[in-house]
């Protein structure tokens, strides 16, 4: 067994929370630059320029790119050969989130109860997803997720007869109904298959991919391209002011499913698609 110290996990998670919020991925900035070449709307181009400048200011001054620094969503790949000393994994992650959000001047956006709505004051608890993998490493990805775009997400239990057309219509319709609310240009995570709870996880996980990466299965690579083209025909455009660029990317994740089912989930991400990873 390889030992990893509790405190190292705390410090790593804290650092990832701050970096994810302040340093927007180079793939996103590059996608803004490419969009600027394609966008026909003058207002749309102005928005894209502001978004590029915004990422530069945020990175230079280490301040969050968006004031909604999100729910701290944490993806963990825990090697079966890892033993954590001095404490528990989930405690360490939450302690790291509290440290990162407090010391990093990030906004605390979590209420302890969905109806009584008292703020927890340190952005905990995180939403944590753990997969056990082989090996003796611990991989942690922090992906803060804003409320505006999360509210525009949806799961639908389609059946096999709906086919690809059914999926496509649902995804495009979900984007159309969202209009300006999720802060376009958006990224669209699509989960297909699994079951009710699995498909939402797939859609969220899909959003961790880099823009420009191609789906390993050519069949789905083609489907991603088709969905992106359809979404960019809606005319919603940057910030919903009208334009060519409504989405920067569509990512699909799939899983085997029941003979009677074809669940689909759409998880919309604003242009501030934030995720940072570390391996211990």
């Amino acid at each position: 067994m390889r030992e990893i110290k509790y405190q190292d996990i705390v410090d790593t998670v804290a650092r990832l929370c701050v970096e994810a919020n302040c340093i927007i991925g180079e793939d996103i900035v590059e996608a803004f630059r490419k969009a600027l070449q394609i966008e026909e709307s003058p207002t749309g181009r102005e928005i894209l320029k502001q978004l590029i400048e915004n990422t530069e200011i945020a990175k230079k001054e280490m301040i969050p790119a968006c004031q909604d620094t999100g729910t701290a969503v944490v993806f963990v790949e825990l090697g079966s050969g890892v033993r954590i000393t001095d404490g528990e994994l989930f405690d360490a992650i939450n302690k790291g989130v509290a440290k990162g959000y407090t010391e990093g001047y990030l906004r605390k956006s979590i209420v302890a109860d969905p109806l009584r709505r008292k703020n927890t004051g340190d952005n905990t608890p995180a939403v944590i997803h753990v997969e056990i993998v082989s090996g003796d490493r611990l991989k942690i990805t922090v992906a803060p997720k804003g409320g505006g775009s999360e509210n525009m997400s949806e799961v639908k239990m389609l059946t096999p007869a709906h086919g690809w057309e059914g999926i496509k219509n649902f995804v495009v319709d979900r984007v159309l109904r969202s209009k300006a609310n999720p802060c376009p240009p958006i990224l669209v995570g699509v989960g297909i298959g699994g079951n009710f709870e699995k498909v939402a996880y797939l859609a969220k996980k899909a959003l961790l991919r880099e823009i420009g990466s191609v789906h390993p299965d050519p069949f789905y690579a083609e489907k991603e391209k088709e969905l992106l083209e359809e979404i960019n025909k809606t005319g919603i455009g940057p910030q919903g002011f009208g334009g060519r660029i409504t989405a920067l990317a569509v990512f699909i994740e799939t899983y085997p499913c029941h003979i009677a089912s074809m669940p689909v989930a759409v998880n919309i991400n604003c242009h501030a698609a934030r995720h940072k990873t570390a391996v211990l």
Partner: protein
Amino acid sequence: MKRITTPLTDEIVKDLKAGDSVLISGIIYTGRDLAHKRLVDAINNNQPLPVDLKGQIIYYVGPAPAKPGYPIGPAGPTTSERMDPYTPTLLAYGMKGMIGKGNRSPEVIEALKKYIGVYFAAVGGAAALIAKRIKKAEVVAYDDLGPEAIMRLEVEDFPVVVVNDCYGNDLYEEGMKQYRRL
């Protein structure tokens, strides 16, 4: 690009059209859900408002904490539709403008025409850039609401786009139609 200074008059509002890019300078006030509820309750009960909103602009924002040495933390717009139920009352009172993001209700769009008001959108997610245009920030009312307290912001060239003007135009509808290819 148009430049305007607060407070707003009917003449200034009438000159703004959906789709115009505008730079705002002067004083604007922040307000979100709870502050709106209190303001409207005060108006309905004929009580004085803690800040005079006549001719003023309310910005829908919940900033991140300010780093030492900064007047305010990153401060991009929040979704406006949550304030729709309160907005017609405030426009009737004399408020002239709002800054947020996303669509407004038919009642708000109607009230903008009736009382000569304007709804601007700031760029959602451009919070670090927007904060640079805020020179001073201080809580002026409802400080018990914490991050939802009303703040007085001194802004310089604060970048917005006119979404709903006082003529009933809606940039979201018109812009989308113009570029739609479905």
